[in-house]
């Protein structure tokens, strides 16, 4: 496809052609209308003038017969103007009038007639158009009274040429403008297409050009760029994940293999084998857990698992989870408090929401344990779970008094497999918060980490359902009996 045919096939160009045709037709109609009406008006004026002349001449004829008529005609012929007179004898010869000669055709006709006549002008004789009324007078004489209507012919010519020129200029501007606009647009589209091709070839850093005009193409490019940024981020995530999988799954696999190998080399027999095998199973279980968590996150991020969403009370889920973890917290010397709240409804998958909250509480208990808390600041080893309604969001807030997460690391710890150095000694896959973040995203919410001064404050916000009318009074406030001494 050549550049020109490509241009002609653009929507813009076709649109400009269509508009050109429409405007052209409209212009023709308008001009024709003006011309027509002008002609009608002029014709009426013409007839009126001729009628008036005739009336005057008829009076003269009635007064003094042919002689007076001829005199009057001769008189009037002296005054310059566009009126034309001619009195012919029965042979057709001129008796009086300002027309030098008439054609045979005119002398034979009767009534209104249009004809051409010649008159002297600068540099010769010119032929002009005229309109006249022809009367037969008694005795074979004829009276011709008319007016020069060459101006009308001129008007028609002017209008015709105006129309032609106008249409021509319009077509020129239309096609030219269409060409320029299309070329401009086509150039931008081509730039977009070129960028897209480089992106398809694997260079995800490419971005569509934006010229800053804020027009529709710019806005489209902006949205597409956001999409590209998200895709790039996802791809980077995927790459990072595969690297991490390689590391975090291969390391334990290798450990497992080493252990089995070492056991095989052991000469001591069954008890050693048994122990090695048991450790192998433990290691395998750990691997399976990591693998399951990874798959869950991947599925959540792909948008799966949203089918089991139902309207449920976050307060009840929080209560359940707090109750599930309360003994563990107590065992570790941590007070787990679930703030009593009114029911807050969200549309969520109970299992996923439960797991997300459980992960947060689990983390808080692990890292908010007394030996980890800042010594000497007097803060109680305490983990609390609360729910706040903030605008349209329900916020589930889990706080601890542990070492917290330094602000530069707060976004990073949400990524898969990221574990801060301080937490390496605790068992865990580094996938817990990633899973919570994925659950939050799936439900249209978000996860953010804040400073609890001291400690960590994790906020899981989910869009709340407006169920104000359904909040039945007297709902049991959870949490009260959970306070461990």
């Amino acid at each position: 496809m050549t550049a020109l045919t490509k241009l002609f096939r653009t929507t813009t160009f076709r649109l400009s052609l269509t508009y050109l045709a429409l405007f052209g037709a409209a212009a023709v109609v308008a001009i024709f209308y003006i011309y027509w009406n002008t002609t009608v008006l002029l014709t009426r004026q013409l007839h009126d003038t001729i009628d008036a002349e005739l009336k005057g001449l008829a009076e003269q004829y009635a007064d003094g017969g042919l002689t007076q008529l001829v005199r009057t005609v001769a008189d009037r012929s002296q005054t310059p103007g566009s009126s034309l007179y001619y009195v012919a004898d029965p042979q057709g010869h001129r008796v009086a009038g300002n027309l030098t000669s008439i054609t045979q055709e005119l002398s034979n006709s009767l009534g209104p007639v249009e004809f051409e006549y010649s008159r002297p002008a600068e540099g010769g004789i010119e032929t002009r158009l005229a309109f006249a009324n022809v009367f037969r007078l008694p005795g074979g004489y004829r009276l011709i009274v008319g007016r020069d209507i060459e101006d009308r012919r001129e008007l028609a010519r002017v209008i015709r040429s105006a129309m032609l020129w106008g249409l021509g200029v319009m077509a020129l501007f239309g096609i030219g403008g269409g060409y320029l606009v299309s070329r401009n647009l086509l150039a931008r589209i081509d730039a977009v297409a070129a960028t897209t091709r480089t992106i398809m070839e694997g260079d995800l850093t490419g971005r569509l050009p934006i010229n800053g005009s804020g027009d529709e193409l710019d806005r489209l490019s902006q949205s597409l760029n956001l999409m590209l940024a998200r895709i790039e981020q996802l791809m980077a995530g995927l790459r990072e994940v595969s690297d991490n999988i390689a590391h975090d799954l291969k390391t334990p696999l290798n450990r497992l293999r080493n252990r089995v190998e070492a056991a095989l080399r052991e000469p001591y027999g069954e008890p050693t084998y048994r122990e090695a095998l048991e450790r192998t199973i433990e290691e395998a279980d750990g691997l399976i857990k990591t693998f399951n968590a990874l798959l869950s996150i991947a599925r959540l991020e792909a948008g799966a698992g949203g089918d089991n969403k139902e309207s449920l009370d976050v307060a009840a889920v929080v209560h359940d989870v707090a109750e599930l973890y309360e003994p563990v917290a107590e065992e570790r010397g941590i007070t787990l408090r679930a703030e009593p709240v009114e029911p807050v409804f969200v549309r969520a998958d109970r299992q996923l929401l439960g797991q997300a909250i459980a992960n947060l509480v689990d983390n808080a208990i692990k890292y908010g344990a007394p030996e980890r808390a800042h010594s000497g600041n007097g803060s109680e080893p305490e983990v609390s779970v609360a729910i706040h309604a903030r605008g349209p969001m329900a916020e589930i807030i889990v706080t601890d008094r542990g070492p917290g997460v330094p602000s530069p690391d707060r976004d990073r710890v949400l990524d898969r497999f990221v574990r801060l150095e301080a937490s390496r000694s605790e068992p865990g896959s580094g996938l817990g918060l990633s899973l919570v973040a994925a659950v939050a995203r799936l439900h249209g919410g978000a996860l953010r980490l804040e400073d609890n001064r001291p400690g960590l404050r994790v906020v899981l916000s989910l869009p709340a359902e407006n169920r104000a009318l359904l909040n039945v009074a007297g709902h049991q406030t959870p949490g009260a009996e959970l306070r461990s001494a």
Partner: protein
Amino acid sequence: MRVLVIEDDQETASFLRRALKEQGHVAEYAADGQTGLELARANAYDVLIVDRMLPKCDGLAVIGSLRAEEIGTPALILSALGEVDDRVKGLRAGGDDYLTKPYAFSELLARIEALARRKSPEEGSTRFVVGDLVLDRLSHKVTRAGEPIMLQPREFRLLEYLMKHAGQVVTRTMLLENVWDYHFDPQTNVIDVHVSRLRSKIDKNFATPLLHTVRGAGYTIRDSAH
């Protein structure tokens, strides 16, 4: 217990059969859905172990056909698909329990034993008795040797589930699923702590412990005198 294993992977199937035999169960085997369906129709099994993806006739379809014919043999679905919605689909198709591969054999065993017990009349009884421990489901009262024991609502449900499966091994995941109705894997030993709390309430002041830990598997409640 007579078990039918419908599983297309030869090695898994023979491992399951050998392990089940070691536990004193009779295990039969079908390598595809069609054969499995025919066997399940023809014989009275206590439990079916059905792989979800099978040649000829898919696992869920096998269970669906059986249920349509009003054959209510309890069925455990084995699947590599482990997400909540997969589980829901499996249970909706008529499966009674769902276990994700890879699994521990102890988990599988505990689950099929629990399933086989479902048919027993004890299921619907209002009073569970293990040794001198009595749980009354109607009055929500628990006594040991006639002395009342105060339990939190969740502890009551935990004990109720354990006593319903008295003499059987109950795994931690089974407890989480049936007592808390959560199907995820809590990273910490939350269930163990709940069980040890319960144990301190029912066993602490008594000579014979009733609630036992089964190493590498889970818990069981039984009267050790028997």
